[in-house]
């Protein structure tokens, strides 16, 4: 099945646009795409000629163009007929927003729409979902744009079984400067599920990282998923819910008890190089790091540069808790660093890794120290912890350090407190491909993401 019309539609038809209910999902989707996206949108309502001054069609057959993407938000029991009409008129794909299928016990109705679509090789997302969001192209979320945020465009595609989690993560990604290529709420995933989308995004040129929120897989689907993900050539990040064992099933063997659903899930993912985020913070840190360094794999031997002994010590602790090493520096290496420092810092800096340039450190000290560390074979990545209230640090340092790290082809991660007035420093990093974390733990998680990334 060709999923491209779903993500790159030129023409859309929205079924069930309402003349009386301004907030009807169909109306939201109709309005926002018509006003804000480069697609031609047709509204459908059998009883109306116009709604809100817009021409409305009685059925999809009346529309003068072939439809790439149909949006179906009609009552569940009407969906099979609408789907058949779409197929009859050669429409290419659909998003079925409507609820009222398997999630309310109507497996039969869900089976019917799957059978109709499968027979015609007609792809649809849903039912019971928000559908898709592609920045600057199409948005089937029935949420008024002014109530959410405008997500940033980026290279992560995010597939979610829950629409609510998806929208929430989009908001949080945006707040952290993480951009999306595509966002898909798959709902009941009756026809198209994680595996199909994994396949699609493996070859989608705008996607470099594929992230999933997963509640559970069907029979043996988890196995297929991990085997595909391992070979897909892009980092795959998964966050899972429903980890706690449900109910009190009688377990007759030790292994059955020890190899619980979640234990198996987590083990199978790790075995096949899929990066499991334990919580939202890990998810965002992993996504942010891998979106900048999708093809980087490191062992995790970190050089740390800061102006505060406390920040250095906390970073070392966080590294240790993840099994990331912070190699010590030889006397001669320390001497090499020391001789390049400004005279005030030279006398007092602690240079054994973590490197504490102290409050006397200036931009140039960071630059020369970073160069020395980046040139070392023992060090495969750098964390810089910048406290912009130190007088010697300027807003230019972000861009400067980013360009140097690129020269050495080693990943650099920056920690900068998330304060509006430091935005120029932060952008200096981010615009030059260096992820920035507002927390020490987050910076270390960004290293951890690269350590877990497939070689």
């Amino acid at each position, binding site marked *: 099945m060709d999923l491209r019309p779903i993500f790159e539609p030129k023409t859309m038809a929205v079924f069930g646009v309402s003349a009386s209910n301004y907030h009807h999902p169909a109306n939201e989707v109709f309005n926002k795409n018509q006003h804000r996206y480069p697609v031609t949108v047709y509204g459908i309502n059998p009883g109306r000629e116009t709604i809100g001054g817009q021409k409305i069609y009685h059925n999809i057959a009346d529309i003068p163009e072939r439809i790439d993407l149909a949006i179906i938000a009609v009552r569940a029991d009407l969906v099979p007929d609408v789907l058949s009409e779409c197929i009859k008129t050669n429409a290419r794909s659909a998003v079925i927003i409507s609820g009222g299928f398997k999630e309310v016990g109507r497996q039969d109705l869900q089976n019917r729409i799957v059978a109709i679509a499968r027979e015609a090789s007609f792809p649809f997302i849903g039912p019971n979902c928000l559908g898709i969001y592609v920045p600057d192209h199409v948005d089937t979320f029935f949420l008024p744009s002014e109530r959410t945020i405008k997500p940033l465009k980026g290279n992560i595609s995010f597939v979610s079984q829950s629409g609510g989690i998806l929208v929430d993560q989009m908001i949080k990604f945006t707040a952290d400067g993480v951009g999306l290529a595509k966002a898909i709420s798959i709902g009941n995933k009756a026809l198209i599920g994680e595996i199909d989308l994994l396949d699609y995004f493996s070859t989608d040129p705008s996607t470099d990282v594929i992230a999933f929120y997963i509640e*559970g*897989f*069907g*029979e*043996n*689907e*988890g*196995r297929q998923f*991990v085997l595909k993900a391992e070979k897909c050539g892009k980092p795959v990040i998964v966050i899972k819910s429903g980890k706690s064992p449900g109910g009190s099933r009688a377990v*007759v*063997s*030790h*292994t*059955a*008890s*020890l*190899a619980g*659903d979640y*234990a*198996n*899930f987590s*083990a*199978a993912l790790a*075995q*096949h190089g899929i990066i499991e985020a334990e919580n939202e913070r890990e998810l965002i840190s992993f996504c942010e790091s891998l979106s900048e360094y999708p093809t980087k794999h490191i062992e995790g031997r970190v050089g740390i540069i800061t102006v505060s002994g406390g920040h250095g010590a906390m970073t070392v602790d966080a590294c240790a808790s993840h099994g990331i090493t912070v190699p010590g520096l030889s006397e001669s290496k320390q001497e090499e660093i020391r001789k390049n420092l400004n005279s005030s810092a030279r006398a007092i800096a602690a240079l054994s890794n973590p490197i504490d340039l102290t409050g006397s450190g200036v931009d140039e000290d960071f630059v020369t120290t970073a160069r020395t560390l980046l040139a070392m074979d023992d060090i495969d990545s750098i964390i810089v912890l910048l406290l912009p209230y130190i007088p010697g640090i300027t807003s230019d340092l972000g861009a400067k350090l980013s360009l140097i790290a690129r020269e050495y082809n080693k990943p650099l991660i920056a920690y900068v407190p998330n304060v509006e007035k430091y935005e120029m420093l932060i952008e200096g990093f981010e615009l030059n491909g260096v992820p920035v974390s507002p927390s020490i733990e987050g910076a270390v998680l960004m290293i951890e993401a690269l350590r877990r990334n497939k070689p």
Partner: protein
Amino acid sequence: MTNFNPQIIQIMEASRKYGWVLESDAKQIFSLSGFAVPRFTVAKTLDEALQFANKIGYPVVAKIVSPLILHKSDIGGVIVGIADDKGIAEAFQHLTSMNGFVGVLIDEMISGIELIVGAKIDFQFGPMVLVGIGGTSVEIYRDVILKMALLSRQDGLTMIRSLKGYKLLDGYRGAEPVDIEKLADILVNFSTLVMALKDEIESIDINPLLCSAGQCVVADARIILKGGVKRT
């Protein structure tokens, strides 16, 4: 199952009425699949038990064989370290009174570090293999590593080395180390067997697998068949 040794097929078929494979039969399957098992017999009478114990030499272990008793240790169905004929007689008398008695399993007594090797057919991920520090307290310490079958040799080695208790295997406090390479081979062999049996079973426990410098022996095993244990 068509490629199987006909004896294995026969055991599996015969076990279906219980929903699980009795220990002695499970050991037979493992033995036929190339795993080391203790010398054992199922004695229906005291005479048979005595004869076998004297043939292999004391000490021995006696265990209840009953399709109704899945967890033998929990109800005193396992007697270890039997040193003489008198011990056998006492054990036999104790075990014959148990529910569903079919016979007494007399096992050669093996020593070694207790590991668990297990399998579960997971709904989402299919056959999973587990290795861990075994024994009756395995569910308390939960020092286990899981991977999806099939396992490569490298998978096996990684699993063993990832155990918290790996040091126990690696010659802890002057003990002779367990042959890790051989243990990895056992895991690979086990994962192959599990893949072959995946449509017939729910889970497998080898607990304990007794490991010492020279060998790893399947000292106890149970195979739960698809559909689960029949409670009749």
